[in-house]
């Protein structure tokens, strides 16, 4: 691996990311999957970086999940997205930042469509106006929240914060970065670093002291693939994809997987359980699985936020070994407590994937 070659390619895929005044749109599913992530993003942006991030409660789904599952027509989707833009315009913002990768891809797809087919844009403006009476400006800048974290990676990794280095050996942690398919595969120029060797997560990992693993199936989908999972008959495809990725990365002994998409961490995390139940195989050290993190969770960890505030207790694969490796302190007793300090109950132990026992 010649990192110089990658830097050469990264040079070609520089993208402009707004620095402030973000109109932030949440993901439909992330708050269920990894509830602490979006909250952490807002906390970092506002508390650590002092940025203006605006949220509008009237914001709805972009309908991407329906669009990619072939149940929502493109026209409908475009009109719904036009409404989001109208909300942004009404709020006086022009930097559009999405929490979701699929939304990010979809916004880009729609803006590109409108760019090449102005008549389509005109029609959608007509639809939106007829339906809601709204008009909109197209955003000046569209970024994914991971782009924004990437932009401020230096500030987050400021001296004194935690680093992705093994406390015991002093060696950098080995990290698998997994980019959501809709981030740059459709429009390589819209992603930091392009589609082949995306830099957005790699940049964070490098900045925070870790090392990125380049394994053969790094381009492969996490396995979600919308219809692959959503239609039950297709779930075999979904889990087969995930297994392919794990089989490919396992020889590199990654310390954890970093993701920037709503679905990827969900499937890379939960399918480790399903695979262990189906096949009896586990990945990672000591049968504990390979921890999977969202970039917000990782940024929060670097900043020293309490892991249980980040929502790491809802991960299937225990993150404690990773916290121990880095040396992030946590109170194991608080892991399964409600905000009132009452026990919230604990999941049953799986047959193969081990629970972490604190010593």
């Amino acid at each position, binding site marked *: 691996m010649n990192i110089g070659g990658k830097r050469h390619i990264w040079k070609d895929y520089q993208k402009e990311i707004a620095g402030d005044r973000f109109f932030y749109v949440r993901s439909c599913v992330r708050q269920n999957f990894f509830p602490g992530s979006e909250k952490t993003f807002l906390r970092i942006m506002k508390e650590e970086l002092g940025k203006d991030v605006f949220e509008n409660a009237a914001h709805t789904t972009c309908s991407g999940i329906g669009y990619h599952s072939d149940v929502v027509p493109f026209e409908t989707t475009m009109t719904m997205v036009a409404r989001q833009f109208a909300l942004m315009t009404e709020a006086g913002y022009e930097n559009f930042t999405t929490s979701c990768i699929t939304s990010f891809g979809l916004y880009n797809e729609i803006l590109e469509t409108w760019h090449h087919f102005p008549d389509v844009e005109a029609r959608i403006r007509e639809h939106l106006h007829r339906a809601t009476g709204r008009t909109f400006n197209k955003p000046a800048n569209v970024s994914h929240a991971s782009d924004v974290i990437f932009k401020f990676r230096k500030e987050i990794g400021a001296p004194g914060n935690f680093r992705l280095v093994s406390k015991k050996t002093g060696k950098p942690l080995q990290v698998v970065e997994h980019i959501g398919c809709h981030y740059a595969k459709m429009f390589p120029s819209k992603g930091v670093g392009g589609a082949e060797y995306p830099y957005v997560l790699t940049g964070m990992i490098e900045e925070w002291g870790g090392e990125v693993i380049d394994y053969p199936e790094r381009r492969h989908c996490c396995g979600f693939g919308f219809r692959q999972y959503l239609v039950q008959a297709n*779930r075999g495809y979904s*889990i*087969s994809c995930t297994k392919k990725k794990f089989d490919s990365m396992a020889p590199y002994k990654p310390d954890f997987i970093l993701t920037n998409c709503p679905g990827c961490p969900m499937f890379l995390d939960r399918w480790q359980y399903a*695979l262990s139940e*189906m096949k009896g195989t586990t990945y990672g050290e000591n049968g504990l699985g390979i921890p999977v993190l969202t970039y917000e969770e990782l940024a929060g960890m670097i900043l020293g936020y309490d892991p249980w505030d980040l929502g790491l207790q809802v991960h299937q694969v225990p993150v404690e070994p990773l916290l121990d490796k880095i040396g992030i302190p946590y109170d194991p007793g608080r892991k399964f407590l409600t905000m009132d300090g009452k026990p919230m109950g604990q999941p049953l132990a799986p047959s193969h994937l081990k629970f972490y026992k604190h010593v």
Partner: protein
Amino acid sequence: MIHFGYGVMADATTDYDRNDRRIAEYLLEHEPSVNLCIGCGSCTAACSTGRMVEFNIRRLHTLIRRGETLKLKKEIMKCMFCGKCQLVCPRGVNLRNVILTINRALEQTG
């Protein structure tokens, strides 16, 4: 083990590194003309058997060379040996002996 109602599927990819290529190696050693194939499909187009039933001699020996031999034994039995394939092959692949050699290789690899 939990029954989820679905499971991990077999990979459709030809994994050249892991496939058992003993039949291919035997074939290439004993009938090297098979290496001359350019995939034109004349053999399959002329094939007396392939006209009547699913039997693609061109694909069959290409698959063998890649180590894909799962359906081989069943397929190879359909050949009538008439030799038309060989007569039309623009590269002089000795197709009848290819079949005989594959049969022998199958016997030897069990």
